[in-house]
C-alpha cells in the first residue's frame, strides 16, 4: 500500500481528536450543566438513616416508632429542601443516592462483591493457565485501519472509563461499569493487532495495590471513627466534585481493581495456551 501522508499529519490528527475529547470531558468536570439539578430532591434521601444501633434500639423500645408510624423518627431531622450546589450534606451521602447506599451504608457488602469478582477471575485464570504457544492455524492480520482506529479509540475509551468512576458520586455509574469500560478498551487493543500482550506485572501490581487500598481505607475508618468503612472525611456541599467524603476514593480503588481483573481475564482467554499437566 502506498503511503503518501507524512507521519506528522497522522500524529497531529490523532492529537486533535483526543484533544476534543479532553476539552469536552474536562468541561463536564468543572461545570455542572442545567439538567443536573432537576431531580436531586428525589435522588438524595431526606431522612438521616440511623447508623447508631443504640439510638435506634432506644427509639424502638420507647414505642414511639410503632405508635405513630414513622413520624417521630422523621421529626428528629428537620425538613429542608435540598438545593444543588448550595445545601451542605446532611449525611454521608452523595448527589447520587444509589452510590451513597452502595459504598457508604452498605460498604462491607461491596467489599464482598469485589472479593467474588476476584475469585471468579482467579478461577478463569486457573482454568486457562499454561504455557504460551504459537497458534496452530494461521491467523488473519487486522488491517491498518483497525490498528490505528483501535489505538485512537483506546485513549478515548480509557478517559471515559476514568470519567465514569471518578464521577461515581455525582452521575450514574461507578466502579464496576468504569472498570468494565476500561477493560473493553484493552480488549480493543487486543483486536487491533495480533500478538498484543499487556504488561502482566503491571496488571498484577495494579490489582493488588487497589485491593489493599480498599481495605486500608476501611481500616482508617475503624481506627478514627470506630467503625469499619466509616466516613472520615468532610462531606462538603452536594454536587461538588470534592463532596461525598471517601466515596470517590473507594470508587477509584474499585475501578482500577475491576479494570485490571477483567483485562487479565480477557488476556488469559484470548491467548493460546498449552496445558502443562497433560
Amino acid at each position, binding site marked *: 500500500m502506498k503511503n503518501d501522508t507524512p507521519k506528522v499529519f497522522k500524529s497531529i490528527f490523532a492529537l486533535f481528536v483526543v484533544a476534543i475529547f479532553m476539552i469536552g470531558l474536562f468541561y463536564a468536570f468543572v461545570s455542572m*450543566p*442545567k*439538567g*443536573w439539578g*432537576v*431531580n436531586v430532591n428525589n435522588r438524595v434521601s431526606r431522612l438521616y438513616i440511623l447508623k447508631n444501633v443504640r439510638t435506634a434500639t432506644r427509639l424502638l423500645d420507647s414505642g414511639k416508632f410503632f405508635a405513630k408510624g414513622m413520624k417521630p423518627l422523621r421529626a428528629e431531622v428537620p425538613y429542608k429542601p435540598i438545593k444543588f450546589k448550595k445545601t451542605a450534606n446532611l449525611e454521608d451521602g452523595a448527589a447520587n443516592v444509589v452510590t451513597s447506599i452502595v459504598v457508604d451504608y452498605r460498604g462491607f457488602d461491596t467489599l464482598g462483591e469485589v472479593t467474588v469478582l476476584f475469585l471468579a477471575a482467579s478461577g478463569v485464570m486457573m482454568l486457562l493457565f499454561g504455557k504460551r504457544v504459537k497458534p496452530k*492455524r494461521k*491467523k*488473519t*492480520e*487486522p488491517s491498518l485501519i*483497525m490498528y490505528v482506529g*483501535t489505538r485512537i*479509540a483506546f485513549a478515548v*475509551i480509557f478517559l*471515559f472509563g476514568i*470519567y*465514569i468512576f471518578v464521577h461515581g458520586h455525582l*452521575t*450514574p*455509574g461507578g466502579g464496576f*461499569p468504569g472498570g468494565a*469500560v476500561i477493560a*473493553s478498551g484493552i*480488549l*480493543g487493543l487486543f*483486536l487491533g493487532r*495480533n500478538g498484543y500482550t499487556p504488561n502482566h506485572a503491571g496488571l498484577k501490581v495494579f490489582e493488588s495495590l487497589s485491593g489493599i487500598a480498599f481495605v486500608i481505607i476501611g481500616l482508617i475508618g475503624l481506627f478514627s471513627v470506630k467503625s469499619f468503612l466509616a466516613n472520615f472525611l468532610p462531606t462538603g456541599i452536594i454536587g461538588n466534585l470534592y463532596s461525598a467524603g471517601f466515596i470517590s476514593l473507594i470508587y477509584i480503588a474499585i475501578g482500577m481493581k475491576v479494570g485490571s481483573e477483567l483485562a487479565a481475564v480477557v488476556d488469559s482467554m*484470548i491467548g493460546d495456551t498449552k496445558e502443562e499437566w497433560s
Partner: protein
Amino acid sequence: MRIEIPTILWAIWFIVISTATILATLRAVIGPTNSDRVVGLDTWTTITTGFWVILALFFFQFVLLSVAMVYAILSFLGVLVIARYLERGL
C-alpha cells in the same frame, strides 16, 4: 430548554424511530448469513444511541447522555469482536 417543542413533533420522532428499530431487528432476525445479522446489530445499536440521546432531552437529564456514550463504546467493541471472529483472526 430554549424553546418548547410541540407534542406532535415528539410523537412523530418516537413513531419513526420505533419503526426504524423494528426494521433493524427484523434484519437481525431473518438475515440469511451471520454477516447480515452483524450488520443488523450494528445498525440497531446506532439507531438506539440516537434514540437515547433524544430521550435524554425528553426526560431532561444530562446524566442520561453518558449512558448513550457507554452504549456507543460497547456496541463498537462488540461488533469488532464478532467481525474478527468471522474473518478467523481472533
